[in-house]
């Protein structure tokens, strides 16, 4: 226990970094997910192909390989970002593919009649998507989106492997100093569980508030 209290500031900084990384990437991945899901259902075949390719590529590459490629290899062709930014970009791009698929599943649950009615009153593709399809489609997949956010939280720990000092890395450092693995790693594990629990509670709340009972 002493190991935890003696290094509260390091662990606290790690926790804050994890939370920041999670929040930033969730927002980024959500926006990307909506764009890619829209591309995949667009009337233009080329855009559909781009959307499909995006999902195929980023669902089938390991996140760690992407992080290594982005952080260690891209500087050799002159593309460099601060470490935190790089990690955030890569995780957002990676999770965006998963969110796009979840959102597309949500769009699939919207009745055909809704889209037809939207077209019948003269809405364009973008308008019907914005005012009719997405508001209903997103509400249908709040739970799956929440699960992806929890996976995202756990994936932010991979940023440690390329040098971002977030919770996992902070715990590792503290353990190397204090050599009290049980206390340190259990503490970090509990913090992750707590964060996941919060995400779960928030999605549960949103689900109860927003979901449409059909």
């Amino acid at each position, binding site marked *: 226990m002493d190991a935890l209290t003696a290094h509260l500031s390091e662990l606290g900084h790690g926790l804050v970094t994890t939370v920041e990384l999670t929040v930033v990437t969730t927002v980024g991945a959500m926006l990307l997910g909506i764009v890619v899901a829209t591309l995949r*259902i667009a009337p233009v*075949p080329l855009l559909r192909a781009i959307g499909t390719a995006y999902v195929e590529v980023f669902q*089938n590459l*390991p996140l760690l390989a*992407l992080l290594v*490629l982005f952080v260690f290899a891209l500087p050799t062709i002159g593309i460099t970002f601060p470490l935190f930014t790089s990690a955030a970009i890569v995780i957002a791009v990676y999770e965006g593919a998963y969110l796009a698929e979840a959102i597309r599943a949500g769009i699939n649950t919207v009745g055909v009649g809704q*889209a037809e009615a939207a077209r019948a009153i003269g809405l364009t593709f973008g308008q019907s998507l914005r005012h009719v399809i997405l508001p209903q489609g997103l509400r249908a997949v709040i739970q799956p989106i929440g699960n992806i956010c929890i996976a995202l939280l*756990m994936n932010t*720990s991979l940023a440690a492997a390329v040098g971002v000092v977030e919770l996992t890395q902070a715990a*590792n450092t503290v353990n190397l100093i204090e050599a009290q693995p049980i206390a340190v790693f259990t503490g970090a594990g509990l913090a992750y569980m707590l964060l996941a629990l919060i995400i779960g509670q928030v999605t549960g709340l949103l689900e109860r508030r927003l979901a449409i009972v059909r």
Partner: protein
Amino acid sequence: MNQTQQILFDEPGPRARRRIRIATVLGAILLAGAAVGAVYQFASHGELTAARWEPFTTWPIWRYLLNGLWATVRAAAATAVLSATLGLLLALGRLSTHRPLRWLAGAYVEIFRTVPTLLLIYVTLFALPQYGMNFPLFWKLVVPLVVSNSAAFAEIFRAGILALDRGQTEAGLAVGLRRGQVMALVVLPQALLQLTPSLVSQLVGLLKDTSLGFVVSYTELLYSGQVLSSYTHLLIQTFLVVALIYLVVNASLSKFARVLQARNGRFGGRRGRRTADLPPPLIEGNSTR
């Protein structure tokens, strides 16, 4: 997919066709612009010269990377077998009528579903050796992967078992089978068949997880790329090739999962339940699915 495409737009008329053409051209220009930008970045840093790509046409380099891939496959196979078995046991535990068992299995799944795999890897790397558990390198990667993947497998199995119509269990009990027999003879064979696509998808996730060998210094594909690039100094080339190998392997597995999904989890033509041949249900809308 076809259905989605059709709900959002009608058969395009002349104006819509023109707009689609314009959007196609714009999209193509954007793509071409991105490609030109990438080539320019590569060229201006001298990464496009033949000398920096030539090694990847030689057999020794490929033999090294394919050895890495083979190590990845071995780690993934060991993880898959162990975590699927453990996952099935956990799912059965969570669904058992025995309360302590249900509670234990539930706690295991809930804990390891929300603890990052990397944290578990650090535990096996830095904590367990202090308590005399110093595994060989291969198991330092596989053990944490099994611990976290078995929780994921447990959830897949549980969902599959719960998704099966309750009538199946009830019918099994009604003809006098014991609970264990109902599970083994009636529920599991049907649930597993339905689950094969999800299980294959989970296999993709698991194969991606083996890239954590990078942290353990177990020479699977990603770490092989790291070792190779530190010898050859061909950083971006090596990691692009490594990414391509991952993409080919995983995309084939994902494709296989989709084919299974489309065929309702059946491998061959004959095996499995042929839904088309079943008589229609007597009462409509009574099914839970």
